[in-house]
């Protein structure tokens, strides 16, 4: 073992001694200097040293390092923390002296040298922060600290964990800390088998993936009893997780279904009620996504404060943009093709080529960045089920759109006219409905909804000229499978196909799963040539 490695190994222990006796107080300045010099290994040690130094400045410095906010000023090699200042003007960072915590003026990024971190250092910082923040007054930070100790399982943290555990009042955080301690006990070689057995029980009761990881690692133990307990514990966790996997598949299926529903529902209107096979439907979706992009760009420059709700602002605009393009298409192309529904397919295919190339010419061929607002990022747990906010909102949104559309068709005069025109055009015209206008509005409505879908899809997929192509075939499958002219069919069809797809995927793989779904649709249409919810009766033909 090289001297350095030995030192690294000993350092935490030395540091604990130092905290206890405060006789070994290293100079903060030199600790911070070590943090920014040398290779990653040396700096790794420096982080550990700083973390265990007991210095009050340790936590903010490490946090800044982890976040990439720690800099070295070129002019005087001073280590500073830089933050984008609200008032500092463009490109200037407000600086704080890392060691003293005092204001150090402002500087442009070019005058600073960023202190680099890699994943290894981030991990070390995380573990260190775990011990450092266990006593934080903020319960959220304490909980996070306990959780990060559980995943890091850093033996040196045990010393910090015990007093924190004694001081903790909040039961659930206490529970997290006990789990963290158990995890550390299980991974530290020099704990007794009895301690380990008790720890296995604690971890097993936690019951999630992380617990599984700890137990599987513990199952490598040389002690037979511990090994057996860990294996049994892992088995029980696995069984719980297995059950949750099914729930997860259903959830993923519903989520995929909601995307399919969004993409298909506009088509259900234009195709299902008007008989127009709109191959440019995907491009309407794409226009909606690009509208979101433009809205975000505009907000970024003119009203950065509204960025969080940019997606919501984009919704009506996307509806209008796609809807307007839809009306334009209907007035200039589709209306000449009523009664020649297969011809609409050809014309709109040409149109989709034109629209794609137009977007490519205007926005360039590359993907465009559409960011997610914070309320659409991240996830939460329901039992062992990971529910991501983005997907949840898309499901909610899909259902809202569906409900609104249903309401529109059933309860408004426009809806009544639409149904009248699609059922019997000459009759509708005879009773004074202006059919051309209704046609244009119906097509505009279908396209507008596609635009709404585009806003949602911009959150999970590429915003590129090819966006629409990826959904057009799936959308047709959904509408046809559900039964043309039946909105509920589209809802059920989308959900069913989504869930079937997700249940097949783990067994057959993503590709074969999709092939099987397609074959299923082909066979299904043979059985029920008019889809899931077909109208029956003489009037059909």
């Amino acid at each position, binding site marked *: 073992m090289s001297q350095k490695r030995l030192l690294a190994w000993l350092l935490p222990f030395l540091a604990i001694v130092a905290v206890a006796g405060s006789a070994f107080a290293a100079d903060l300045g030199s600790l911070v200097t070590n943090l920014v010099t040398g290779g*990653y*290994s040396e700096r790794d040690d420096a982080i550990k040293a700083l973390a265990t130094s007991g210095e009050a400045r340790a936590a903010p410095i490490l946090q800044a390092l982890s976040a*990439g906010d720690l800099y070295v000023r070129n002019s005087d090699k001073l280590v500073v923390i830089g933050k984008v200042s609200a008032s500092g003007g463009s490109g200037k960072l407000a600086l704080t002296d890392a060691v003293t915590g005092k204001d150090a003026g402002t500087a442009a990024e070019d005058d600073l040298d960023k202190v*680099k971190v*890699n*994943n*290894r250092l*981030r*991990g070390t910082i*995380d573990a260190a922060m775990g011990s450092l923040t266990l006593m934080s007054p903020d319960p959220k930070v304490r909980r996070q600290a306990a959780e990060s100790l559980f*995943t890091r399982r850093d033996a040196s943290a045990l010393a910090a964990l015990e007093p924190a555990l004694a001081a903790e009042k909040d039961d659930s955080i206490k529970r997290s800390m006990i789990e963290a301690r158990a995890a550390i006990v299980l991974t530290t070689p020099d704990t007794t088998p009895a301690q380990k057995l008790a720890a296995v029980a604690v971890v097993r009761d936690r019951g999630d*993936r*992380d617990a*599984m*990881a*700890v*137990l*599987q*690692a513990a199952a490598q133990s040389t002690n037979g009893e511990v090994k057996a307990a860990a294996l049994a514990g892992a088995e029980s966790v696995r069984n719980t997780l297995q059950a949750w996997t099914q729930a*997860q*598949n259903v959830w*993923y299926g519903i989520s*995929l279904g909601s*995307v399919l529903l969004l993409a298909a529902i506009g088509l259900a209107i234009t195709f299902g009620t008007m008989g127009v096979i709109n191959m440019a439907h995907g491009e309407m979706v794409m226009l909606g996504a690009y509208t979101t992009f433009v809205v975000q760009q505009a907000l970024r420059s003119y009203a950065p404060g509204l960025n969080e709700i940019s997606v919501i602002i984009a919704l009506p605009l996307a509806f209008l943009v796609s809807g307007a393009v839809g009306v334009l298409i209907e007035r200039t192309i589709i209306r000449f093709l009523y009664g020649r529904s297969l011809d609409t397919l050809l014309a709109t295919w040409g149109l989709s080529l034109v629209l*794609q190339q137009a977007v*490519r010419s205007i926005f*360039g*061929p*590359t*993907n*465009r*960045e*559409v*960011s*997610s607002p914070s309320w659409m*990022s*991240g*996830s939460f747990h329901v039992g062992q089920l*990971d529910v*991501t*906010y*983005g*997907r949840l909102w898309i499901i909610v949104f899909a259902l809202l759109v569906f409900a609104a559309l249903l309401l529109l068709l059933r309860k408004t005069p426009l809806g009544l006219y639409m149904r009248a025109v699609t059922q019997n055009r000459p009759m509708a015209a005879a009773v004074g409905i202006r059919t051309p206008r209704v046609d244009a509005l119906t097509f505009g409505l279908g396209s507008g909804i596609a635009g709404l879908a585009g806003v949602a899809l911009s959150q*999970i*997929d*590429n*915003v*590129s*000229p*090819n966006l629409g*192509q*990826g959904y057009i075939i799936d959308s047709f499958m959904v509408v046809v499978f559900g039964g043309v002219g039946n909105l509920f069919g589209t809802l059920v069809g989308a959900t069913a196909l989504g869930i079937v*797809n*997700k249940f097949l*995927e*783990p067994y057959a*793989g*993503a*590709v074969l799963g*999709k092939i099987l779904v397609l074959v299923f649709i082909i066979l299904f249409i043979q059985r029920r040539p008019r889809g899931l919810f077909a109208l029956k009766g003489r009037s059909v033909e």
Partner: protein
Amino acid sequence: MKLGAMIRTGLVAAGLVASATTGAFAQSGDTIKVGILHSLSGTMAISETTLKDVMLMLIDQQNKKGGLLGKKLEAVVVDPASNWPLFAEKARELLQKDKVAAVFGCWTSVSRKSVLPVFEELNGILFYPVQYEGQESQKNVFYTGAAPNQQAIPAVDYLMSKDGGEVKRWVLAGTDYVYPRTTNKILEAYLLQKGVAKEDIMINYTPFGHSDWQSIVADIKKFGSAGKKTAVVSTINGDANVPFYKELGNQGIKAKDIPVVAFSVGEEELAGIDTKPLVGHLAAWNYFESVKNPANEQFIKDWQAFTKNPKRVTNDPMEAHYIGFNMWVAAVTKAGTTDPSKVIPAMIGVKAPNLTGGVSEMLPNHHITKPVLIGEIEANGQFDVVWKTPGLVPGAAWSPILDDSKNLVADWSPALNCGNYDNVAKKCIGSGK
């Protein structure tokens, strides 16, 4: 219409087709034509259009420097429209009709495979700028992108090192086509060699443009919770990356827990993603825009001026074209002619500076020497170089790790003049010549 008249009309029509397609035969003697064979429409336009632009810039710059052999260079741009047979057809058009001196083009493996026979038959020159699966060396092709040993292997080495997090468990996730298949095959063999257990390697393939990553990301999460440090080696192709990374971010997979190292994600791809949730994930390339040196800064400045867009990013395949183009210019100058049969031999040994501060050299196997860089994604969509090979790595056409190819070498120098020479059997096998 009488029979004779009808046939006559038909023949005239056929003749028109023939003459229109060959019409522009008039080869003006005072320019040297350079073909650009990159998709400008269809699914690959997203990546390839940039390369067309960079070629136009390089040609423009060369002309400002006085052209080549006293003649101006003239770019001939065609659109193979992400359609593989069309690549072959357009390659033939460039070589036969436009008589271009060299072609810079292709992105996907299949487009390269599609044009290979054409270049072989018509003895053209193709510069291929994209990292690829290797296991190939063709006399008429110069591979300026990375071979697997210039990207994949160093990346895995890095992850296995202390700095990379001492990864013990590996997810090899890729799009189902030949580049990921080959790369993963090489990586699997390499990892097994390094003592990684078979059950610690998970291989997953998805179709092109895969957009629903929920299940697979959940699987990766599951695989990563076995108590060993886990990393994902991603050979996921272009379009599918954005939803993949978005899903990673949403499901809270942080780089410090399960880092993802990608071989097909560069600055251009990141420009389409909100990178904040992805900070710390990795990419392995031979060039990053963030590399600091005068040549690169000049290149970026020129590029942004040429595209009139101060935010346009640069990426690795662009650098490959930069190197390849300069090498070709050097070789033509050396040979004193653009005749491929003279230029091809002259290419071997030609040196050209790359944009990371070194000088790349064309090897006898038609691959080049390049440094390998590992970058971490930063919040601003750039990469922060966290590791770099000490020197330049020579590209290997044939992987020494795989049984099929461990005895093979490619050497187009006059002594061997063979793309797949069996070192043990001492002969040139298959279609190597």
